[in-house]
C-alpha cells in the first residue's frame, strides 16, 4: 500500500515557476503505473522502496517459516534437504539484500531531504533507476527457484567451491541478480552522499545534522567501499563456473579460502550497513519520547565512525576455524573485541538520555527501547563469539544463528518498524492506530524472543546451522523456536494492517506530530506535501 499522497496541487508551485518565466516546474505527473515507473520524487521513491521491502520481508519470512516448519520436530516431514537448503539460502539473501537494505534506503529517501532541508535527492533520475533495478534483480533471483536443478542452495554466504563446481546451473542467474542489486546499492549510496554533502540547509554544519543523516552518510561510504568487492568476488565465481578459471578451485591451483577473505571483507561491513542507520533512527526516537536531548551527540558520531572503520579490520573473525595462522587469529580477536567499545558508548548514551527524562511509551518508543535491550543482548553474544578459542565451539552452530538474528530482527528490523511508526504521521498525515501498534509490539517481542532465545541453548548444546534434521536432544529447543517463528510471522500482519489503516485515515497529525521531536522534518505540514523545502529553510542551531 502506498501512503496516500496529499491532495495533489500540481499548479501550486508552478505559479512561481511561471512567474520567473521558466518551465522547470512540475508538470502534472503521468497517471497510473507510469507515474510510479517514471517518478523522480524522493517521497514517492521512498514509498516504493518501503513497499518493495515490506513485500520481500514477507517472501523471505515465508521461506523462514518453511525452514522452521521442517525443523518443528526431528525427521524429514515436509521438504527434501535439497529444497531446505534453497530455503535457508533464499531466506538469507532476500532478508539481507531485499528487505533490510531497501527498507533503510527507503527511509533515507523519505527522511534525509526532509531532515536536512533539501527539496529532493541530489540525483533524482538516478534515484528512480536505483529503485527499479531492485524488482528486476529479485524477480530474477526468485525465478531461479523454478529453474532445473533449483535455486541457490549453498547458504547466503555462498562459499566456494560449493557455490562454483558443485552448484546448480541457476547460479549464473544468482550472480547476475546480485550484480544488479549491488549496482542499485552503489548508485543509491552515491546519491545519498551527494545529497548530504551538497544540499543541507544554509547554516547546517555536518555536526548539526540529525544522527539518522550522519549514520546514513557513513553507511553510504561503507556501501561504496564494499559493494565493488562483492561484485569482484561474484565475478570470479562467474569465471570459475563458466570460463574455466580456477580462482577458488584447488584442483586448478586456486584457493577456496581466498573466497572467504573476499566475501567477508564485503560481508562484515555489510552487517554494519544493516545496523548503523538503525542506530540513527533510535537516536532520533529516544530523545523525542524522553523529551530530553541526546546525551552525547558528538560521541555518537565518533562512535559510528569508529565502528565503520573497525568493520574493515575484523572480517576474519568469521573464519576462525579455517586454519588461519596464530598471529592472524590473535589480531582479528583483538580487533573484534575492540568493537565492543564504541558500541558500548552508544548504548550508554541511549541509557543516559533516558536518565532524568520525561518518558512516554508510544509505539515508536517501545520498539526503540526493545531495540536497545535486545540489540545489546545480540552484542553480548557477539562479544562471546569474538573470543577465538570459544568460537571454535560456537562457530557454525545455532548460537551464531541466535546472535545475528538478535542484532538483525529485534535490532535492524525493530528499528525500521520504530522509524515507520515514528514517521507515519509525517508521511500520511495520520497517527497510526496506537492500540494496534501496541499489540503488534507485544506480540513481536514475545515472538522474537521465543524464536531466537532457545537457539542459544541449541547451539551451545551442539546443534550445527543449516541442517534439515537434528539429533533428538535438540528437539525441545526447535519446537519452541518453530512455535515462536509462526507467532512472530503472523503478528507482522498486524503491522501491515496498521500501515494500511494509517494511510487510509486516523487521528489527524499536526506538523510536529510528537511533542518532543526537534528535527526539520517536523516543520513541514503533515502529510508532507509532494514538494517541500523548495526554498531552503533557515536552520536554527538546537542544543546538539
Amino acid at each position, binding site marked *: 500500500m502506498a501512503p496516500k499522497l496529499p491532495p495533489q496541487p500540481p499548479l501550486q508551485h508552478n505559479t512561481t515557476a511561471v512567474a520567473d518565466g521558466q518551465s522547470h516546474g512540475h508538470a502534472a505527473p503521468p497517471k497510473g503505473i507510469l507515474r510510479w515507473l517514471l517518478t523522480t520524487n524522493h517521497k514517492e521513491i521512498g514509498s516504493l522502496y518501503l513497499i518493495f521491502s515490506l513485500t520481500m520481508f514477507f517472501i523471505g519470512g515465508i521461506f523462514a517459516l518453511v525452514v522452521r516448519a521442517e525443523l518443528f520436530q526431528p525427521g524429514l516431514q515436509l521438504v527434501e534437504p535439497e529444497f531446505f537448503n534453497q530455503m535457508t539460502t533464499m531466506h538469507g539473501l532476500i532478508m539481507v539484500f531485499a528487505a533490510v537494505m531497501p527498507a533503510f534506503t527507503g527511509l533515507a529517501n523519505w527522511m534525509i531531504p526532509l531532515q536536512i532541508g533539501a527539496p529532493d535527492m541530489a540525483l533524482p533520475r538516478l534515484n528512480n533507476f536505483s529503485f527499479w533495478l531492485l524488482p528486476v534483480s529479485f524477480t530474477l533471483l526468485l525465478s531461479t527457484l523454478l529453474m532445473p536443478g533449483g535455486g541457490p542452495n549453498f547458504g547466503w554466504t555462498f562459499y566456494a567451491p*560449493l557455490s562454483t563446481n558443485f552448484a546448480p546451473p541457476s547460479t549464473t542467474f544468482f550472480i547476475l541478480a546480485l550484480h544488479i542489486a549491488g549496482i542499485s546499492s552503489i548508485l543509491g549510496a552515491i546519491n545519498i552522499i551527494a545529497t548530504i554533502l551538497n544540499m543541507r540547509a544554509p547554516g547546517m554544519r555536518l555536526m548539526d545534522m540529525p544522527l539518522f543523516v550522519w549514520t546514513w552518510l557513513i553507511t553510504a561510504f561503507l556501501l561504496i567501499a564494499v559493494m565493488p568487492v562483492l561484485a569482484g568476488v561474484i565475478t570470479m565465481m562467474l569465471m570459475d563456473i563458466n570460463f574455466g578459471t580456477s580462482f577458488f578451485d584447488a584442483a586448478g591451483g586456486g584457493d577456496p579460502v581466498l573466497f572467504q577473505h573476499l566475501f567477508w571483507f564485503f560481508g562484515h561491513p555489510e552487517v554494519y550497513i544493516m545496523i548503523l542507520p538503525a542506530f540513527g533512527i533510535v537516536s532520533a526516537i529516544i530523545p523525542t519520547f524522553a523529551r530530553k536531548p541526546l546525551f552525547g551527540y558528538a560521541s555518537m558520531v565518533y562512535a559510528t565512525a569508529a565502528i565503520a572503520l573497525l568493520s574493515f579490520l575484523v572480517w576474519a573473525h568469521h573464519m576462525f576455524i579455517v586454519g588461519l595462522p596464530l598471529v592472524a587469529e590473535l589480531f582479528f580477536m583483538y580487533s573484534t573485541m575492540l568493537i565492543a567499545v564504541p558500541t558500548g558508548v552508544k548504548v550508554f548514551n541511549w541509557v543516559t538520555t533516558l536518565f532524568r527524562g520525561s518518558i512516554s511509551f508510544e509505539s515508536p518508543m517501545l520498539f526503540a527501547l526493545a531495540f536497545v535491550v535486545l540489540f545489546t543482548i545480540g552484542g553480548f553474544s557477539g562479544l562471546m563469539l569474538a573470543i577465538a578459542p570459544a568460537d571454535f565451539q560456537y562457530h557454525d552452530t545455532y548460537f551464531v544463528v541466535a546472535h545475528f538474528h538478535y542484532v538483525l530482527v529485534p535490532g535492524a528490523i525493530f528499528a525500521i518498524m520504530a522509524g515507520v511508526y515514528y514517521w507515519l504521521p509525517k508521511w500520511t498525515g495520520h497517527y497510526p492506530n496506537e492500540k494496534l501498534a501496541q499489540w503488534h509490539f507485544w506480540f513481536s517481542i514475545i515472538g522474537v524472543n521465543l524464536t531466537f532465545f532457545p537457539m542459544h541453548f541449541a547451539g551451545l548444546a551442539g546443534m550445527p546451522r543449516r541442517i534439515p534434521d537434528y539429533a533428538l536432544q535438540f528437539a525441545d529447543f526447535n519446537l519452541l523456536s518453530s512455535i515462536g517463528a509462526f507467532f512472530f510471522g503472523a503478528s507482522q500482519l498486524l503491522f501491515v494492517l496498521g500501515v494500511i489503516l494509517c494511510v487510509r485515515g486516523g487521528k489527524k497529525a499536526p506538523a510536529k506530530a510528537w511533542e518532543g521531536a526537534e528535527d526539520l522534518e517536523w516543520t513541514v505540514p503533515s502529510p508532507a506535501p509532494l514538494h517541500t523545502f523548495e526554498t531552503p529553510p533557515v536552520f536554527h542551531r538546537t542544543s546538539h
Partner: protein
Amino acid sequence: MRSRWWLMAVSLAASGSQAQTNGWNMPVGVTDVSSDIYGLHMTIFWICVVIGLVVFGAMFYSLFRYRHSKGAKAAHFHEHTSVEVLWTAIPILILVGMAVPATATLKNMYDSSDAELDVMITGQQWRWRYEYLGEDVAFTSNMSTPRTQISGEETRGEHYLLEVDEPLVLPINRKVRFLMTSDDVIHSWWVPDLAVKQDTIPGFINENWVKINEPGIYRGQCAELCGIDHGFMPVVVRAVEEEEFDSWLAERKEAAEQEAMGVDREWAMDELVERGESVYQSICSSCHQAEGQGSPPAFPALANNEQLINDVDWHLDKVVNGVSGAAMPAFRSTLNPVEIAAVVTYTRNAWGNDTGDVVQPSAVAELIAQ
C-alpha cells in the same frame, strides 16, 4: 522427564563417559583444552551478565522513575567528559582482562608439536575418511542411522543421526595430531566434547590436535554446509585405553594386509556382489540412492543406465577417476582395489542391470597403477 535424565546418567556412566553435558550449555568436554574453553566461555558469559544487569538496571530504573505520565520533568543536561572517558576506559580494561587468558588458550591450541599419533581426516560428500598415517590403516565412516528412521517409518534410536558404521578410534592420554583436508567442498570436523572444530578444505591441510583424558564415545557433526546431506555426516570418536588402542590398531593392520593380499586372487561373483553391496550402501547410496535410481539431474540413475551397462571400461573409469566438474569423486585412493572391483561388479548386476560382468580386483589394481 526425571526418569529420562536418570537413564541418561546411567547410560553415560555405563559407557565410561565423563562428558558433562547438561543439554543447555557448552560441554566441559574431556580434554584440557575443552575445559579451558569452557572456562573462557563461562567467564565472558558472567561478564556479560554483570554488564547487562548494570546497564539494563539503569535503563529500567529510568523508564520507571521518570515517566511522563507521573509528571516527570525532563532535565536538559548533555555531555560530560569524565563520564564519557570512564565508559570508554572501563570496557577496554575488561576486554584486556579477557584477552589475556584467551590468548594463552589459543597459543596452546595451536601447538600441535610432539604428537604420538598422526591421523589424516578427509571430508567427502558426505562421510569422513580416517587414515592412521604410517600404520597402513584407513577406513571411511558413514552415518549408520537408517533412512527409515529419518522418514519416520521406524522409531528413532537414542543416537539418531549421531551414529556411524565405523567410529574413529583414538587412545586416551596420548597427543594425537589431526591433519585435515577435503576431497570436494569445505566440511568442518567437530566434536564438542573434544573442543575440536576445524574446516577441512580442498587443497589445504589444516592441523589440530587432541589429548583425551577419559575413555568414552564422543559424538559430533559436520559443521560447514557441504551440500544435500550436510545434516547426515556425523563424527563419532571412540576413545579407549592405550593398550586397547594398540591391540585394535594391530588387528586392523593385519586385516588390511589380508585384504591387500586378496587383490591377487581370483574372486567369485557372489563374493564380489556381497562385498559390493555393503560398499554401495555405505558409500554410493547417499547420492545414487538405495535402488540405484539416482536423483537426476545432479546424481544420475545407475539402474538401467545404458552407458553403464554397455561399457564396463567407462564404468570402471568413472569410479576410479571420478567425473570432473560433477559431484562424482575419484575413488582411486579412498577405496581399495577389492572394494572398487566389488562395487562395480555389484552395480553391474543389481536392479535389473544383469550384465553378468565380473570385475576382478587385480584388474582394478592394474588400472590404478597406470
